[in-house]
């Protein structure tokens, strides 16, 4: 298990932000445990989870801070996003207000957080929006096309998506007029304009969840992250810890199964 992992495990501190009840915790849970649980554990301040990812020749270890969405916890958020290399800002595609809040978070991150922070904008709950599930994947892919070879098609859901007919974004918007309040194109345009990665995902079905983290891992400029002096030691400690930890087993199973990331 851990001895097979190449020495180069890179840590990535990632923070999840977004309005209450957009499904931040569910996304993380899906990512870390492949699970969708309605009764997720409470988030006081922030929940802390870890998950490993294999990306090309390196292992990326995500340390995920899943922050509380309630407005009054806002002032605590800087504690969690400081030093973060990546942020996932989540909104709910069925609630337009949540995109506004997401934009506010993006603004805040761009002003207050690490200069090089990689931000991904994620519209969650696409499962509630009928028949448009495939389009976001299509939308997301062109951006990162050049890197595509490294980590692809690990998730079952992803394969399903690929198999399903993928209507054009505009068609998708028309099809899902009722519940959907945030058109894909609108959010995507905003993401492009602000230099964010963009995904529409579903924590419930698992659609696109893995991709979010894969893309983030690819986008982070690892070469510029100078390893801390104690990295080797901490790496050892970590793998020792992780053996006791259930998360990692799941992660490793997935790795074994798919040989890819997550």
């Amino acid at each position, binding site marked *: 298990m851990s001895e097979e992992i190449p020495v180069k495990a890179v840590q990535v501190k990632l923070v999840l932000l977004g309005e209450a009840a957009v499904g931040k915790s569910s996304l993380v849970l899906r990512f870390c445990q492949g699970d969708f649980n309605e009764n997720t554990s409470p988030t*006081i301040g922030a929940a802390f989870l870890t998950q490993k990812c294999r990306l090309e020749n390196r292992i990326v270890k995500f340390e995920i801070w899943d922050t509380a969405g309630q407005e009054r916890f806002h002032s*605590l958020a800087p504690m969690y996003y400081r030093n973060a290399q990546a942020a996932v800002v989540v909104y709910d595609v069925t609630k337009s207000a949540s995109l506004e809040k997401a934009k506010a978070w993006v603004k805040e991150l761009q002003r207050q957080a690490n200069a090089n922070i990689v931000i991904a904008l994620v519209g969650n709950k696409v499962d509630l929006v009928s028949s448009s599930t495939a389009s976001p994947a299509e939308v997301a892919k062109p951006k990162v096309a050049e890197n595509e070879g490294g980590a692809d098609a690990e998730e079952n859901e992803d394969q399903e998506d690929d198999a399903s007919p993928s209507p054009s974004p505009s068609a998708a918007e028309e099809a899902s007029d009722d519940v959907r309040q945030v058109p894909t194109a609108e959010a995507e345009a905003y993401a492009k304009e602000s230099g964010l990665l963009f995904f529409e995902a579903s924590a419930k079905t698992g659609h696109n969840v893995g991709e979010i983290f894969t893309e983030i891992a690819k986008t982070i400029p690892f070469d510029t992250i100078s390893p801390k002096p104690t990295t080797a030691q901490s790496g050892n400690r970590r793998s020792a810890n992780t053996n006791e930890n259930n998360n990692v087993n799941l992660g490793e199973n997935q790795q074994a199964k798919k040989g890819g990331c997550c």
Partner: protein
Amino acid sequence: MSLPLHLRSYREKSKDEYTRDFFNVPTQASLPSSSSDTPSVVKIRDKGYRNNELELQGMDINAVISVEGKEEVYAGRLSLLPPFLCFISLDRKSCRCTIPLYTIRRVERLNSRAGVFALSLATWHGMRIILQLTSLLPTAEHFAILLRDALKSQLAAMKQLKPFLPSLYSEYLLSSPLSTATGQQQTDHLLLGTELSEKPNPTAPEGEGDLRGPGGEGKGIYQRGLGEQFGFPGDARKMRERSKMKLWREYFMIHGRNLTLLRYPPFQRLLQVGLPSRLRGELWEVMSGSVYLRFANPETYGLLLSQNAGKSSQSTDEIEKDLNRSLPEYKAYQSEEGLARLRRVLVAYSFRNPELGYCQALNIVVAGLLIYMSEEQAFWLLEVLCDRILPGYYSPSMEGTLLDQRVFESLVHRCLPMIQEHFVSVDVQISVASLPWFLSLYINSMPLIFAFRIVDCVLAMGVKVLFQIGLAVLKINGEALLEITDDGMFINLMRTYFSTIGDSAHPDHPDPRVRAITNFQELLVVAFREFNVITDETITAERKRLRAIISDEIEKFSKRAAVRNLKNIGKFHKDQIGIIYDHYFSAICSPEAGPSSYTSNPLPGDQFDQPRIQVDAQGRVETRIDHRTFRVFLSQIATWAREETVTTNAFIQRTDRRVADHELIDRLFFAWDSQDQGTLSLQDVVMGLNRVMTAGLMESIEWFFELHDKDKDGFLTKDEVIQLSESLLFIFRNEPGDIYLAAVSKFILNAYEFGDATAPEGSVDEKVPINGDSETASGARERSDSSAGPHNLPYLNLATFRMVVLADELLENFFANDLTASFQLEQTEDEDYHQAHQRSEGLLGGLMNLVVTNENKNRLNRLADGFGAALGKHAEWRKPSLGKSSGTDPTLTPSSSSDLKARESLLTPAQQAGQIQRPTISPGSSRTRSSSAVSQTSIKTTDTTGTNTPDDKRSLADVEMRYREESQMVKAAQEAVMHRPNFAIDAIGDSDDEGGEDDEGVMDEVEAFLKAHGADDEGLKGEQKKVAEDLLKAEPMDAKKKTKETGDLVDL
């Protein structure tokens, strides 16, 4: 956008309030007075609330307490805090009690030979408490009189006692004799038979029947938690529930129970080994004092639920989302019953305290409480938690949480400097781990059975326990903590530690007794022994020191967020928006904005009908300003919206500022109210200012016209023309000379002339503008005179108005430049409001604060004026708001329109703040405040010819002493930590693993804590004790002198 308004209204508690808090005595406001007819369901937040009908006087006195059947006698301080009688022993830990006067049935003065003034109190259940009042006789007699009055006031409450008592488990416990309790165990199990299979410990041995008590229907109507139905967490046998219950029962027999519980040294020991599950809920409410609230407000909880049934709010939505995430591992919260209870308590509280509403983490806390408490019990304990024990933890800005995290960091820095340094070096914040500890009282951090033992201690001893435990956790894990390099490792380490907290702390030790010590026991020992230097006073002092910093941070943070979240900032620069925000905020906090400023949620039917906080379309809470506040706001920005009086005398020159009042300001208010809500949001204000401040000549004329066109038909009526002129005159009111008056007169004349010439034809309902080209002026005049109600007909349109204005050079200039320029965005001094306003503790600062108060300043000003007048140098004039005319003015304003800026610059930004009026004109902002204050001080001391000097001297000494004490305390604390003795492992007794429960075992554990705690019973010895013993046998002195009986309670 919700502003943290309450931060500025914060004031330190008075000594009296601290005393009340210490004894868990609720404030007067939360106890309904006997005459109030309807119980108020929503909290009265006003701090200045006074029970005005009859304010019962409280009093402190030295006393010695003893109880019948108990050897120990304690000297201490007796406090009468109506309607409570409280005692604390001199060492502040051995003995204390809070006794509601309504539980006292009889008070007698005892006839003692020693000649001491002694009172015997008999509680309703016959416990006798002897109090020797050791002060001088007259003082003691005075105290007795006050006590009698206070007792009399409680007659009504005494009647409520009888129906209340059955709700308490301890009464039930004591009413069932031991033998029958054990005998009942069979039936008990039969009744509970159906539930047995669901219990976490289905093979529970029979022996615990009496400790669970007969829980079946009809057997005791005491308030009970979910645990009675779904099983309490933990193994009752391992936790020695039965022995603990027996010990508590014995304790109750002698030391009183529930409302009359006295805390003697055994209490502390029984507490620290963990409360028995069935008694826990009741002891929680007794120790925290929430039981007094439940007693005093029997209907409130039910009313809250029934009055708000079916209502939904942002809070109820948020509660709904979190219900399933509240201790889901506990059985009850997988059932509808448990979730329904949790929902009801949280929802009821959110309506009780709408300002706080609901905060994540409360779901965890309440879920924990409900295992041991009924809904009503949990509700009142929640109120005590939010108000007193964890103040500000769950409020919308969570300032209490942020503050205590900072306090915790500072304590870590003080007590565990190595760890602190390491954390700084690897850039890890302790709060990432410690925040949930504090917010959820460790309930979410460690296994429930241990977490609840910490809750026991927090409720009994106060918030300092959270800090002590936190410090102990860090200390125990110290070595490992020095290895961590990032917050992930930190979290994992803490998680691992907490998950093994029930394991042996010394698994490899040869001695089985040492092996039996768990990590948790060790944690408690370290927390309460090594960190007993952390006292309530430490926490209070640290909070006081750091509060200003936190408040400023929160304000800056919410300012950033508010500015960022504005949808439209017009043509303003971000910094200008910041200034507008500062003015907006300071206006709300300004005392001139009226008493409702701080009570952001007025009571229904309250006289302040303008809500300050509203929920916007997206369910967010928004702060808005009402009309009165707007006047204050505008006075800070528009030069004509304030009255400035410049006073010079022989010594100083100062500018006093008042808020002006005129219809024009009201017009602006309503014009800017884009959503017709009667209140303005920051966005409204920004857009309003954007329009008036970026306007050129034509735009200015236009908005000024629109402002006076009430029905928005594009025409002013004759009345409105007059009103417009009045507005102009108002703006020009303080301009010297009469050119403005002349201009306005001319304007009126011209307006009528042009108006007559161009007035629309037809009647009221025909609003089509008609150019009056074909009409002759006289014809028009005739018509307008003859037609009905000429004064409210459409009369002057915008084009004509513009023409009239442009006809006058002065007015043209005014609209082209002066009007726009009269709105000025200047920095307030608010940036570091709290720190600037904090009373510095230093020697000089303390002195200064004592001397320079607002009161003093006013006196000083008057005094200086007096001197000035005497010297013939007193002068006062109104400052013009535009300053167009060339100076007929004395000294101050060399004015012409181009000099506007130069003149304004005489005013420092600090002075622009309006709400603080300062006598000297000094350059710079808040920093220079102190220097100006210093100069005042010197002026004062020279001028007042020493009348205040003795006072000052004394207070100086006070300050110095306090300062010295504090530094000594800190030093002592540090030394105590440095020289800690190795912790007494040997003292921890063995605990037998094999089932045979015996009291010895528990007491071993108890003894261990006793030793670890270093608490010898510090009862009085010798003489005084003997006196106390004698008193127990003493006869009442004179029955009629101070006897009080309430017949209703005799047969209880």
